[in-house]
């Protein structure tokens, strides 16, 4: 999971950059958002959006609210609910008005009833179908709620991935064998691997032109795997497009690990399944 760049929240100071990770004091917000999603199962998506907007109007950072709901959307299944194909429904009603539209409520009802009869459904259902294919008209069909702290950790992981999309150089260290992570670094760029007394060091030089979406996938996999290692750390040089400047970023397992999801070895991916 990564976030749109405009939802990336960072602090920059003395040549260093760090995402504004969500910590324990954001737990009430996480709980609140989770319960909003829960309450909107079987509701249309625009209703959920309205409820989220209410939260944004309170004293929370709107970028944080939107970032967290982006993560929560990943725990949702949205579904179009319509008895007939909306496009077909639209085509038919336009045809029935002879392309002239309708100018009164009675006229509209007549057209809808006629169309509904052709489809064999009720006029109300047909009315509902007309734009059921719009995103906001989709239903939140299923929601698998994360624990509040897990939500924050997933969000922090997404922040890290989003920040590292603009990494120029990365240096990873961990206790373990080069084979553990090297294969995950290769797709990102040119690698330099070193083994010093049980610690593996991998340097990656990332080419400036790469598709952000595929890079995000590779990065996410790598970070998930890295944080499941022992004694890990990550050091990077990151480009910050809004300022046009370059910053140093570091993440150390012993210090920052609790902010990120706890993963099994390889964070759910293994060499054999991921290649």
């Amino acid at each position, binding site marked *: 999971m990564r976030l749109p760049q405009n939802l990336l929240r960072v602090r920059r100071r003395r040549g260093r950059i760090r995402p504004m990770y969500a910590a324990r004091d954001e737990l009430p917000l996480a709980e609140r958002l989770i319960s909003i999603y829960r309450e909107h199962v079987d509701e249309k998506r625009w209703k959920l959006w309205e409820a989220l*907007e209410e939260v*944004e*109007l*309170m*004293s*929370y*950072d*709107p*970028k944080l609210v939107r970032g967290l709901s982006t993560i929560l959307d990943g725990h949702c299944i949205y579904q179009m609910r319509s008895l007939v194909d909306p*496009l077909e429904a*639209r085509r038919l*009603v*336009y*045809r029935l*008005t*002879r*392309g*002239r*539209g*309708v*100018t*009164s409520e009675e006229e*509209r009802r007549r*057209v809808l009833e006629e169309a509904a009869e052709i489809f064999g459904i009720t006029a109300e259902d047909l*009315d509902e179908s*007309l*734009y059921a294919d*719009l*995103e906001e008209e989709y239903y939140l069909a299923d929601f698998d709620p994360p624990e509040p702290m897990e939500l924050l950790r997933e969000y922090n992981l997404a922040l890290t991935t989003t920040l590292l999309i603009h990494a120029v150089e990365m240096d990873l260290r961990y206790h373990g064998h080069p084979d553990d992570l090297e294969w995950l670094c290769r797709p990102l760029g040119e690698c330099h691997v070193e083994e010093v007394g049980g610690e593996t060091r991998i340097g990656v030089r990332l080419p400036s032109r790469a598709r952000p979406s595929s890079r995000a996938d590779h990065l996410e996999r790598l970070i998930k795997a890295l944080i499941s290692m022992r004694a890990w750390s990550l050091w990077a040089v990151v480009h910050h497009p809004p300022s046009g400047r370059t910053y140093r970023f570091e993440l150390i397992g012993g210090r920052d690990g609790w902010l990120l999801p706890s993963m099994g070895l390889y964070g759910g991916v293994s060499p054999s399944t991921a290649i």
Partner: protein
Amino acid sequence: MIRLRYEGGWLLAEGGPIPFGEYDPALDAYRAPGIRYRDVVRELRERGVEFVDEALRPLVCPRLSSELKLRDYQLEALEAWRGAGCRGVIVLPTGAGKTVIALKAMEELSVSTLVVVPTLVLVEQWRERIEDAFGVDVGVVAGGREGVKPITVSTYDSASIRAGSLGNRFELLVFDEVHHLPSPTYSRIALCYLAPYRLGLTATPERSDGGHAALMELVGGVVYELGVEDLAGVYLAPYTIETVYLPLTREERKRYEEEFGEYASFLEARGIKIESGEDYRRLVVRSGRDPEVRRALRARERALRIAYGSEVKLNYLRRLMREHPDEKMLIFTRYNDLVYRISREMLIPAITHRTPKAEREEILDGFREGRYLRIVTSRVLEEGVDVPDASIAVIISGTGSSREFIQRLGRILRKRRGKRARLIELVSRGTAEIGMSRRRRG
């Protein structure tokens, strides 16, 4: 000796009676409405009454000169206005160059002038035109701005509110879209201001409430009038542009005032002035950190939504559809939610940036081939969208669209069966202040 003063929209006379004046015991003075100033002074002079005029204190206007050339009918119009004592209304179709006549009138008189217009968009347009023509700085009194100069442009709202302090500073009043003037609030401008010279401009002098009779009294009667037929094919573009100002329903008005009031009082409480798009952009940036700014902007957005999606406009659109059942009509608004609402309520094919390409092509083909006679869309003018021609385009805007935008839309119009194509813009009346900070396309 009689001393004339100006106070709170009234012409006051101390030391003796004046024509048209009524004695006000509270002030111990005679008073007459500002509009009577010219008659009062004229009468006093004719009767040989001695008086001191401290009422009219016009700003000093430099000698104006421009390169502007008038067409024959524009010269005739100006001549007719001059012949009526520099008072009166000129009626010309949209696109016939009313502004240029007003500029020429300003140049000839070279006196302090207040130009009064309905919307903030027009404020900007007039300011530009005047500055281009004469190379002078133009003052603006509108949307919270307060810059009075010998040549000043103002909205009807602001000119009316500021009548007490501005009413004696100008000798010439130019009313653009003068058919707005006869409303109770706006007629105050004509009644209170002393300005002896008055020019009204409009394409449509009639008001449904019969207020056009009042124009005679407020500005002077119609001194020159030409219809579209008189000019068609000679001077005008191949389409007409009509701007229709529509009120909100009572309920909408109430909600609008509430929402917009919330935004406005927030700005006031914080001492924030929105005078340019830049100011507004800064406010939006601040909203990221400041929940109160967010709430204020949200209120403004809701107010705007009421204004652009007014039921009165949709009913007007329905009427146009009924009146032109067989003509191709393109309905344009840049608000996607309104596009879908119109599509759903009126069963008209919709195109927005979210419409899949295949469906978009299908709709445009249908329109081209005449299977669909209406399209409602938010994106006709974007590149890569080849829109078939229509004979009527309806723009539903919040508070008025830019001239350039309208002209671009105008290019897709074609005339049918000898009739000129029509471009009709529907604007909500009395919601102009909101347009100020809205960045316009174009």
